[in-house]
């Protein structure tokens, strides 16, 4: 064998391969869209963040990229998530967002989990001109800061408490016992709830607060049982809504309506409480029976994350991403244009029409949900209801 032709053949093959590869370079991929965010993967915020928020971010990137990317002014660009753990620590959260916005200069930022973290990040985003659409922030004080670049998709205390009180009145409730947590969330909700109860002539027989991290509430619940109210309202957070539900069942405190606020709509509430969860009411916004888009979202979430989304803020997190996506596809990545578009546009989301009045979203009303046969049915307002409220709740 002569060595030369063989080498020549090899060179020719390489050259052809190179040529074939060239057109690939010619249509080289558009640069990715960098999306920066922190979520709590460790620390006390982690259970909430990993139930409600981060799974949605992952699902969104997966879906958009599977479709070839986001359409930015006629060009398909893939999403590159830059997500880091914030250790549930405020200073780490602020520092990470400063890095995203100034050093990394990412195209889009997505919000962290929780009201406190949103308070910390909202002014930073506003200062650097990054629009932020947040699903897990609950405070009138945050809304009242009127930061032009900051938007919240979750219903605030007032509409949520309005829906609750209307539902109570519609079910003939005359007396209630109220317990709430000693924090901003508890106090703001109580502040909204009390005048509304008064308007409807519903009497508060007992009102007690408890600190975060409480381990036993049986004494409080026994006192409420003795007062014998028509309904129990707990302005609770996980894990104390587990505690309250479990202990109420133990001591046989069984009012007609049993309401615990946040975390009731978590699938883990149904799993941990088992039959006791049946008939419990709480804050919610949706379920997969509500509409076809809701069902599609639910199935995609379960398929990718191997866990169900919660029946309240998960869909608000998804809606926030839909708002970002529709905005980018309409006006591109110019952040001022994005902000203006978000501020004045009505969006189609998994929860229906959404639009903002300042910071607050005003399209989706406050709602009440109830566990019925393993699904968190929306029972109020009637226009959004997926089932009729089961009253009285049966304890078994």
């Amino acid at each position: 064998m002569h060595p030369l032709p063989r080498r020549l053949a090899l060179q020719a093959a390489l050259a052809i391969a190179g040529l074939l590869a060239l057109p690939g370079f010619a249509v080289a991929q558009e640069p990715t869209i960098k999306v920066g965010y922190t979520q709590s993967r460790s620390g006390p915020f982690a259970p909430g963040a990993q139930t409600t928020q981060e799974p949605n971010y992952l699902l969104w990137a997966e879906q958009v990229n599977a479709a070839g990317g986001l359409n930015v002014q006629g060009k398909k660009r893939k999403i590159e998530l830059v997500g880091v753990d914030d250790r549930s620590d405020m200073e780490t959260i602020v520092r990470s967002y400063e890095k995203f916005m100034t050093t990394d200069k990412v195209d889009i930022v997505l919000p962290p989990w929780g009201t406190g973290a949103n308070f910390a990040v909202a002014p930073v985003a506003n200062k650097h001109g990054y629009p932020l659409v947040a699903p897990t922030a609950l405070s009138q004080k945050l809304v009242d800061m009127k930061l032009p670049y900051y938007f919240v998709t979750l219903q605030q205390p007032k509409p949520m408490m309005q829906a609750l009180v209307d539902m109570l009145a519609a079910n003939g409730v005359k007396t209630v016992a109220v317990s709430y947590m000693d924090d901003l969330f508890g106090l703001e909700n109580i502040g909204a709830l009390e005048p509304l109860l008064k308007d409807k002539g519903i009497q508060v027989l007992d009102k007690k607060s408890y600190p975060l991290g409480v381990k036993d509430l049986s004494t409080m619940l026994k006192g409420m049982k003795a007062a014998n109210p028509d309904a129990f309202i707990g302005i609770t957070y996980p894990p104390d809504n587990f505690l309250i539900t479990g202990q109420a069942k133990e001591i046989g405190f069984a009012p007609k309506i049993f309401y615990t606020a946040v975390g009731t709509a978590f699938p883990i509430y149904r799993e941990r409480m088992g039959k006791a969860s049946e008939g419990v009411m709480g804050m919610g916004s949706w379920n997969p029976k509500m509409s076809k888009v809701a069902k599609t979202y639910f199935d995609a979430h379960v398929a990718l994350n191997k866990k169900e989304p919660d029946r309240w803020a998960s869909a608000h997190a998804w809606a926030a991403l839909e708002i970002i996506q529709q905005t980018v596809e309409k006006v591109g990545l110019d952040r001022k244009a994005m902000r203006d578009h978000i501020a004045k546009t009505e969006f189609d989301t998994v929860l229906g029409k959404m639009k903002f009045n300042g910071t607050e979203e005003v399209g989706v009303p406050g709602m009440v949900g109830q566990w019925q046969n393993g699904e968190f049915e929306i029972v109020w307002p009637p226009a959004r209801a997926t089932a009729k409220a089961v009253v009285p709740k049966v304890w078994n």
Partner: protein
Amino acid sequence: MKQGAIFLVAALLLAALPVLDSPFVQSMALTCLMYAGLAVSWSMFSGPTRYLSLATSAFFGLGAYCTAWGLAKLPWPLVIMAGGLAAMLFALLIGLVVLKLRGAYFAVITYGLGELVKHSITHVEKTYAGTVGRVMTETPSSNVVYWTVLIIALLAVFTYVHFGRSRYGHALRGIGMDEERAATLGVNPMRVKLLGFCLSAWFAGALGAAMAVRWTYIEPNTVFNPFIVFQTVLISMVGGPLTVGGPLIGALVFSLLSEFLRLSLPYLYMILLGLLLIVSVLYLPEGIAGHDWRALWARFGRKRFGREP
């Protein structure tokens, strides 16, 4: 004097950092300085006396709440002073009681008192102010916050060095070695301990007061965060609390390393950080600064070459 010169140059360079106009570098430096200040002030008392205090979170949180209450009414320097003084006052009150305890009892009770302050503030706020969280809208610029923290950290270093050299510093070390003997030699242990404890509390309180404005909104659970004291103690231990260089090196290494690992290995960094801590506790019991590196090097040489190098 050579060390003093290095220190001065470093301080000037740090003070000029805002010129870079890089918020991330600056906030990284801010975190380093905050932990440097906390660790140096913690070591000021706990290093020589070997009293493991876990009250730092309580001091820090008290300072932060002083800012939340006073920011709208007082000028900034006074707010910081007040934050430090509140922590100092608290240290004086609890010190009178808890400084009689030693070892694990002291550590546990200082931690417990932190929880007590947290719940007391929650209660007071709820009962008298009708709120729990506090929002701060008119906050000083990030440069002002940065310089404030820098000054407090520098003050802590300065105090550590001078207090350590003073009569009281010697007395504190004496107490750490043998409290009864120190008392026999004419030291009033309670008074000296109280002084050291209060002095170290001022810095943690002032740092809490300065940092609070970074988060716009504070509530008891974010500012009375046990994470802060655990991190402070770790930094001091890893760095070595018996020299001022120890906590400084510890703060620098720990802040940079944990940030680097967090950003580059988002899913692995906790495991790596844990392993590093185990290694440093096992092999560097005196801390990085306190370790006899020459001896280690000599041993390494013996193993490698079979005989003394």
